[in-house]
């Protein structure tokens, strides 16, 4: 045989081979960058420093803790021009943003919660008991009790340690739309379709008197006065479909003031930390009231359709009052009052950072306002394709999450209103959204009967919590951080 035919094995051209990721760029050794630390409020901390270009966030945190002379090292997250420094100063900023090493860089630092909430992965119990859909779920401010209101006209209180029903509070004659705890956990108020508000003692399960009658239509929302404004926690505001908001005194069981002015059902009322009441209504306006005199302070206009929900940047602080993640219990009222005041001042930096109000509407947009300063909105946040039903500020007031009928949850910057990201995954309208107390996770409940937890840092889905047989109407994360409760049309409460 002559020359052998050469055998060339066929090499398939790999058309789909991805380009190798660029090899990590190392800065030439010894390069330094001039940087200055700046806090969220704009205060500059320390002089401009010469930092090595490959500084990691941990090294930056060490440095910052030293500069601020913190006793316990606190965790921080660092940003330059809205990009977070994840791995390395050089990689992210100089290489990523294309900044030169000659300019002075301003690094914004943001304190993160010291504690970390564990991710919610599974359903620990499914509690039956209600005979109709569960309409509202609310944890007590100290995280020890849970109250649910349902279409079967009862309110039930559940014991969290054993995960069993504790009390059944009956008395309402129609669906219980909303339950709200007073900040010192001593009174539970429930508003119902039968136009009344009832007060209950959550420790014994007994009603505190008969129903409070004054509204002529269904109660849509209840807001208690925050503890740092009133030590006794005895005032609350109730909003109703008849367009009025009434301020009640819980101990006297009477209406102190009626705030009338809205021409359409008032869907949401919030008692702000600065002593003003905000109410959003279907007449497209939000009104700001002074509760002590009962006067209208200003009207915030701008929405083109019903205003569905309001949320405040200090919502979490106002709701939980003196209780924070340490789980301390207070012996006397004055101790609790002092702690609540301290917490509020810390959150608003002693009054320099004003409260921000966000409102969502059926016109697919969200407005961000600073109601104590002016009538004009800060920003208008568009992007949703269907009515936005629910809004929630993160406990540290930095991010805002919005839930909408278009099956997506959007995250926005809480200070400026810029869009951060969209979280997609649900196959049905998203009804409610709530945050974990360390502001790192968001939970959303939807019409497709699933709940999903999302990680805010990676902007990804963390866990899926299926198991409900029907639409999920209400979700809540315990302020203590260990539990999530959800209730819906299938009448089962899941924890």
């Amino acid at each position: 045989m002559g020359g052998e035919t050469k055998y060339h094995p066929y090499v398939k051209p790999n058309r789909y081979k991805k380009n190798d990721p660029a090899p990590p760029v190392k800065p030439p050794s010894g390069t330094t960058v001039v940087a200055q630390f700046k806090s969220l409020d704009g205060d500059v901390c320390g002089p401009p420093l010469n930092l090595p270009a490959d500084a990691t966030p941990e090294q930056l945190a060490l440095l910052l803790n030293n500069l601020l002379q913190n006793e316990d090292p606190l965790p921080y997250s660092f940003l330059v021009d809205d990009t977070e420094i994840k791995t390395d100063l050089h990689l992210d900023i100089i290489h990523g943003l294309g900044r030169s090493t000659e300019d002075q860089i301003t690094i914004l630092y943001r304190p993160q919660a010291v504690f970390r909430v564990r991710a919610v992965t599974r359903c620990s119990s499914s509690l039956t008991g209600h005979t109709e859909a569960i309409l509202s779920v609310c944890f007590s401010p100290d995280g020890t009790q849970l109250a649910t209101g349902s279409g079967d006209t009862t309110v039930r209180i559940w014991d969290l340690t054993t995960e069993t029903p504790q009390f059944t509070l009956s008395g309402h004659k129609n669906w219980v739309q909303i339950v709200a705890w007073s900040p010192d956990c001593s009174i539970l108020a429930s508003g119902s379709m039968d136009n009344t508000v009832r007060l209950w003692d959550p420790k014994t399960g007994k009603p505190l008197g008969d129903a409070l009658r004054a509204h002529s239509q269904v109660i849509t929302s209840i807001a208690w006065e925050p503890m740092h404004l009133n030590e006794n926690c005895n005032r609350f505001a109730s909003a109703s479909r008849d367009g009025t908001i009434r301020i009640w005194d819980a101990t006297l069981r009477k209406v102190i003031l009626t705030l009338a002015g809205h021409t359409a059902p008032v869907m949401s009322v919030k008692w702000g930390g600065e002593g003003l009441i905000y109410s959003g209504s279907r007449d497209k306006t939000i009104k700001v009231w002074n509760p002590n005199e009962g006067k209208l302070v200003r009207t915030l206009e701008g929405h083109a359709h019903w205003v569905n929900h309001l949320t405040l940047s200090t919502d979490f602080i106002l709701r939980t009052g003196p209780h924070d993640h340490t789980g301390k219990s207070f012996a006397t009222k004055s101790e609790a009052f002092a702690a609540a005041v301290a917490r509020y001042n810390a959150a608003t930096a002693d009054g320099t950072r004003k409260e921000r109000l966000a409102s969502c509407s059926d016109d697919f947009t969200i407005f961000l306002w600073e109601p104590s300063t002016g009538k004009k909105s800060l920003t208008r946040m568009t992007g949703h394709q269907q009515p936005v039903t629910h809004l929630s500020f993160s406990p540290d007031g930095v991010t805002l999450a919005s839930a909408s009928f278009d099956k997506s949850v959007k995250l926005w910057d809480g200070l400026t209103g810029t869009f951060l990201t969209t979280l997609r995954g649900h196959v049905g309208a998203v009804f409610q959204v709530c945050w974990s107390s360390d502001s790192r996770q968001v939970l959303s409940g939807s019409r497709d009967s699933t709940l999903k937890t999302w990680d805010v840092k990676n902007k990804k889905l963390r866990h899926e919590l299926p198991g409900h047989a029907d639409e999920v109407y209400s979700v809540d994360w315990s302020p203590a951080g260990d539990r999530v409760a959800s209730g819906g049309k299938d009448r089962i409460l899941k924890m």
Partner: protein
Amino acid sequence: MPQNEYIEESIKKHGRRLDHEERKRKKEAREVHSRSAHAQKLHGLKAKLYNKKRHNEKIQMKKTIKMHEERNNKHKSDDQPVQEGAVPTYLLDRENQTRAKVLSNMIKQKRKEKAGKWSVPLPKVKGMDEAEVFKVLKTGKRKTKQWKRVVTKATFVGEGFTRKPPKYERFVRPMALRYKKAHVTHPELAATFCLPILGVKKNPSSPMYTQLGVITKGTILEVNVSELGLVTQSGKVVWGKYAQVTNNPENDGCINAVLLV
């Protein structure tokens, strides 16, 4: 009967008597007695007619009095009665989206428990013989070869279907009889959706028809139900379901099917 308006003129010029209002009131009060005396004196047909008129007046008066008294009454059922279908505040006054689109998972569960899983709406179907389904196609120069067959019923060929080389193709499926979508009815909600077909699962007449993708009455199809947004108990999204054909597609030009829940 006054001629001209001299009475009105004098009233305008000089006014009325000082006790006019008082006298008028008292006269009207006395009228009641005269009416009743009149009613008692009348007899015969006149009495009957008059009494009927008075009776009607009395009824009207009683009604108006009762209506005025309503104001003071307190009704127990004034508040709306407890209704079915409790909704949270953010869903109040919203017409729910066409409920048909949002199929309830709870209904699905109940149905699964009730009937056997594989019960179909059309259990027995007349079998089709080959002469009905295929038409002989004569080919060749002298049109003597008769080995090719043309399908005369509706068929489903998948996406990415390419014919065999025409020389070797035994079964011809004409493009006009190829369908991609079916009108699927949900039996519980009686709502119909136009859903894309994923494949022919089983044709009851013969496994050969199943292989070819022939769709006749009683065939089980698999349809894409992702647009309905169903979710299973474990959280997975359901995107394919079986449906059974209920009409003769070759006669109607469309495929009507019933979803097998």
